């Protein structure tokens, strides 16, 4: 009933004459970029916060909070001078101390920032005056400005560099970006007001993020003009929206892929043969059919990626070969069911409840494994349980989820043994070496080769069943003009959007 009432309430919402309303499957639970791990958070943070450098319309690096910078001749450090007109939403000036604080907070182990990897290359940052930051690198850097894309936080918003997810800042974030956080609303929506003091003009006065958990309703809401933007359209809604003259589709690239991950820290998923065998029991094409059209993948990159290794094929859906692999791992078929150590094999799959189409995929997978003789339990987790069980406790057998990458497609955090997003516990010295080599290489040919080798090795080790990539389309009302969508952060160019 709640599912029905919520969209009806949204339909009744007055049309936003001066504002733009966009839908997210789930509202960001907190607004603090130091802990950002989801796309809804990344999009909201893009409105509120700024980094030292950002992308311009041609996606080239351009100063944002920085006014100028200078790299030392030995390339071991740099100084960054901040803009004199940069101010926080509460009116205080943005200072070098804020930049230093942000870097220290991200590096502070007590913070446990999901973004810590983005400052690992910085050895030390110091404020030399109110507007100048001196940054010393761990090793020489060629173009350090290209790495200064993380969001800057106000020092005065926190009591120490040990930042907690529960700090009050999460509910009243202070940024310096084109939009100011206005309110968390009772219907889980979030309102952002235009920052009138921002250095450039901002076209749309108010933005509202509406949580519409049932993605099936999102397309209807934009057709009924109860929304002006959908950040991601369900594949099955594309044709309907394409044929509607009040809406325009904007394809954009997100480099997303779906996967079923195995918890390698837990038996029996620590055995490669088990993972490979289970992978061959899954009919991926059949899982994809109800979701939409997409490319089936053989590894951790989308097919159009420079790093996709086209010589690697997805594992075949082959019950016989799967049986041989499972048998080699000590499993036995007892009647219709697989057993291990004399017990019927059963496993639990977890998925975030906000993951689109997760229910269809999980039920289909359940049915496929049941037919093969394996019982699969499914737990759909809310955000708190997801963080606890998957990210913190790693309490799962299988995990169904997706990863979205910016155009650098850096999979290091997911597959390096020290990676902060490697919750499946994948460990391969060979892959670690290749990832290090790829990161350190300045020759694009060498990086391409190393990451294609990573693709092959990861595919062979099968820490995940790599599923598919789907096309990403935004839908915007034709009333929204000057639209350019950033391929990852979505709202980078939102200040230029106009609502007619």
């Amino acid at each position, binding site marked *: 009933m709640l599912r029905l009432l919520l969209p009806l309430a949204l339909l009744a919402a007055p049309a936003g004459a001066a504002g733009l309303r966009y839908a997210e499957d789930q509202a960001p639970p907190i607004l603090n970029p130091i802990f*950002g791990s989801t796309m809804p958070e990344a999009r909201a943070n893009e409105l509120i916060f700024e980094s030292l450098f950002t992308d311009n*319309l041609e*996606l080239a690096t351009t100063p944002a909070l920085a006014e100028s910078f200078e790299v030392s001749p030995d390339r071991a450090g740099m100084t960054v001078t901040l803009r004199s007109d940069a101010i926080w939403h509460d009116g205080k000036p943005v200072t070098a101390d804020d930049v230093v604080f942000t870097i220290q907070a991200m590096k502070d182990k007590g913070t446990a920032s999901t973004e810590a*990897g983005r400052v690992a290359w910085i050895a030390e940052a110091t404020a030399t005056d109110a507007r100048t930051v001196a940054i010393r690198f761990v090793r020489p850097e060629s173009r350090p400005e290209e790495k200064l894309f993380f969001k800057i936080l106000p020092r005065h918003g926190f009591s120490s560099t040990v930042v907690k997810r529960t700090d009050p800042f999460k509910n009243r974030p202070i940024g310096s970006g084109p939009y100011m956080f206005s309110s968390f609303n009772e219907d889980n929506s979030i309102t952002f007001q235009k920052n009138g003091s921002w250095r450039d003009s901002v076209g749309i006065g108010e933005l509202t993020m509406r949580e519409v958990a049932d993605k099936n309703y999102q397309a209807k809401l934009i057709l009924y003009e109860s929304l002006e933007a959908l950040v991601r359209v369900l594949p099955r809604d594309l044709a309907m929206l394409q044929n509607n*003259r009040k809406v325009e589709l904007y394809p954009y690239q997100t480099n997303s892929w779906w996967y079923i991950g195995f918890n390698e820290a837990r038996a029996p998923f620590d055995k490669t043969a088990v993972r490979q065998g289970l992978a061959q029991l899954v009919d991926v094409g059949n899982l994809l059919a109800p979701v939409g*059209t997409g490319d089936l993948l053989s590894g951790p990159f989308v097919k159009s990626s420079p790093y996709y290794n086209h010589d690697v094929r997805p594992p075949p859906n082959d019950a016989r070969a799967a049986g041989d692999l499972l048998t080699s791992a000590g499993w036995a078929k007892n009647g219709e069911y697989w057993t291990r150590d004399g017990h019927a094999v059963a496993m639990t799959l977890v998925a975030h409840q906000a993951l689109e189409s997760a229910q269809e995929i999980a039920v289909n997978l359940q049915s496929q494994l049941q037919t093969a003789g394996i019982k699969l339990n499914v737990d759909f987790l809310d955000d708190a349980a997801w963080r606890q069980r998957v990210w913190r406790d790693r309490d799962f057998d299988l995990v169904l989820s997706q990863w979205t990458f910016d155009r650098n497609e850096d999979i290091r955090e997911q597959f390096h043994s020290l990676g902060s997003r490697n919750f499946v516990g994948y460990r391969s010295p060979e892959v670690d070496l290749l990832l290090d080599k790829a990161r350190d290489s*300045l020759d694009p040919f060498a*990086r391409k080769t190393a990451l294609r080798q990573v693709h092959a090795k990861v595919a062979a080790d099968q820490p995940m069943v790599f599923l598919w990539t789907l096309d990403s389309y935004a839908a915007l009302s*034709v009333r929204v003009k000057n639209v350019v969508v950033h391929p990852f952060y979505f709202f980078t160019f939102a200040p230029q959007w106009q609502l007619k």
Partner: protein
Amino acid sequence: MAEKPELAHSWVAEVVNRPERFTERVAAHREGWVAFQRNDWPAARAAGGDPAARAGAELARFYAVLDRANDLAWSRLVTRWSARGLAPGLLQRLADASGPVPIDSPGLLGSDVPGADALGSRVALHQQVRAGQAPAAALVELATRPMLVEPVAETGQSREIEDPWMLETLAMAERAALAPATDDTLFSGRLDGSGGFPALPAPVNDALADGDACRAKVRAIDAELDAWRTALAGGAGPDGRALLDDLRLVDSTRARALVDMAVAALEAQRPACALALGQLALDHESPRAIGPVNSPTLFAVVATAQLYTGRTREALDAIEPIRATYPAVAALDETVNTLVVLEGIDRRGDSRE
């Protein structure tokens, strides 16, 4: 909105209103027309006759558009390469040798570099194809392998350098082989009886506004086509209605018209407009596949416009669907791959759930 009188005289109207005449038109080369309608140009060309001639013209344009993308990718790759201060190697020398007629430059790289012999024979083959002395297929056969492989002592690996002239030579070869088609309107983007295309809106200086202007133009075209589709279906008999739906006549004609406009926009140096037109032409029901609505040139236009607008990584998404059918695209794909890696080589990636 009322149906425009010109549309009533278009080839689509004739197919729907006089299906028997359509049957006569395609009778001689039925398989070829079926392939041409699906934008399967290799099959259409193999079938001979008008479909072959039309497919040849489409291929010439397709390769010409991709050659534009190739030039841009090479130029950006070399500029970045130099700015990055990387060891110059063959890539730089190859680019330095490029000029208006690079293929004719004798001793392009000199004989002191690895691969000079391989390069010499590749250049010779290009010249033969351009002179009509060798089939283009001989070049295409080599397309999925790098032209030169340069060992790099510092990395212990090698740089694979793609053929920079592949698409230019193929465009020239296709143009040279062009044959006139008797039936040049069937399955075209010509929307009226006189064989006209919709014109581009007047250019706007600002790229964002130009994109919006071209989107507005498409909305106006769509309003006319919506009315037309209704009128066509209402006036057609059962056979005509079946053809209208089965062949997706309005959708595919719309897409062809938008692609024609997008090519014109690229030629007029209006990439934001070309990108808007290309994106609006795409069949979102099967966005990664060539079909009656999505022609290879549509993907080529989108890729080229993406490159012009700085969306290098996104250009790869548009190149991917044509790579499998057209092996010659592999060289461009790998060059853009390298450019994408180079453009992001100093960045720290971001990823989210």
